[in-house]
């Protein structure tokens, strides 16, 4: 972000950066930056609080009025909450769920789980006025599950889109299935912090189990492109200690 600030300003366009990692902004000295004390992924602080977001945006834009720089200032107001904010109406899911099967193959359990979450995802879509962030791959959640578990078999799945390297296709499909889970979980009863959603996905779902298996598969793959999947872009760094603790306790 700071690099873009330097380059655009050199081209004559004034910039102000939101800074999520103050140490990086201090090292790079962009023309103007407002450090905010928010979690990574939420530069405006919190979802569904327009007044708070406006204070952040305005505090940043007001740095454009400064006469000299570089400027690195702090936004001192902490985010008021870590979850998704108040749910305006009581949401419920008007279906009865069969008991989740604990037997069966990973692929079967994953398919069951996805099927059960579909109803919640419909609730989420209605709650968000039709909005979902699914649709990057063009695959349905059930197709995503089939595609991902095929990677764990002896036969690699057929490409679902032209122009993707295998590792890129796997990564997009994994991210999209996780998005489906996260969007469905967001409207289930209770207020869910990102940490709670993370823990649920990685420790309590068949999808999390599949993702760990995919990471292990990628680590042993002969395809060099899969190394990034294994080390960086499938399992979050924050999840590693959770998985290690579970393994130690089992």
């Amino acid at each position: 972000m700071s690099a873009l600030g330097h380059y655009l300003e050199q081209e004559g366009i004034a910039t102000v950066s939101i800074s999520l990692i103050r140490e990086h902004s201090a090292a790079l000295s962009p023309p103007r930056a407002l450090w905010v004390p928010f979690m990574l992924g939420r530069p405006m602080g919190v979802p569904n609080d327009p007044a708070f977001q406006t204070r952040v945006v305005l505090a940043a834009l007001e740095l454009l009025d400064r006469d000299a720089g570089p400027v690195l200032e702090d936004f001192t107001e902490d985010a008021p909450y870590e979850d998704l904010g108040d749910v305006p109406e009581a949401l419920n899911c008007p279906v009865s769920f069969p008991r989740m099967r604990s037997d069966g193959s990973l692929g079967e359990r994953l398919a069951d789980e996805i099927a059960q979450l579909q109803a919640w995802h419909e609730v989420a879509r209605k709650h968000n006025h039709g909005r979902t962030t699914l649709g990057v791959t063009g695959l349905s959640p059930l197709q995503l599950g089939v595609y991902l578990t095929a990677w764990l078999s002896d036969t690699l799945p057929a490409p679902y889109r032209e122009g993707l390297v295998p590792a890129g296709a796997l990564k997009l499909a994994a991210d999209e299935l996780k998005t489906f889970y996260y969007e469905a979980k967001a409207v289930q009863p209770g207020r869910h912090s990102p940490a709670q959603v993370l823990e649920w996905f990685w420790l309590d779902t068949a999808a999390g189990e599949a993702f760990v298996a995919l990471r292990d598969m990628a680590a042993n793959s002969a395809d060099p492109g899969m190394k990034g999947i294994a080390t960086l872009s499938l399992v979050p760094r924050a999840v590693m200690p959770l998985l290690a603790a579970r393994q130690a306790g089992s």
Partner: protein
Amino acid sequence: MVRLADLPQAEREGHLNRIPTLPQFPTRPFVKGPALAQRRVAIVTTAGIHLRSDQPFDTGGAGIDYRVIPGDVAPADLVMSHASVNFDRTGFQSDWNVVFPLDRLKELVRDKIVGAVAAFHYSFMGAIPKIERYEPKARELAAMLRNDGVDAVLLSPV
């Protein structure tokens, strides 16, 4: 989990270890301009968001290209294909403004605090190893911003 010191050790070390690898910028450009109420503002994000119909970011490419986001984009049309899994996505999934505050910017224009909103906004994908590689695309982007009459950019990371 709001400050570097509050992050898990592996996360914190990852960000701290990056500092010695960051480039030094020899110049300190600082462009002055009109008051905020006269400025035309664009959002440039590194959140890896784009229209659903666009090519996703994380597809094995160089990772330094950008996507154009029209100013009349609908919330239902934006998706995210960022490579990193080490930031929260639940916020964006629930409310795009926590990453891409276009509605807030439009409200500030309505209230005559900001002059105008750009016709187009832009999205890169952050988390590339060498941020100097953004330079050619950033200079290309500057020309597009000038053509749109933009004289101020809000840069927003994830």
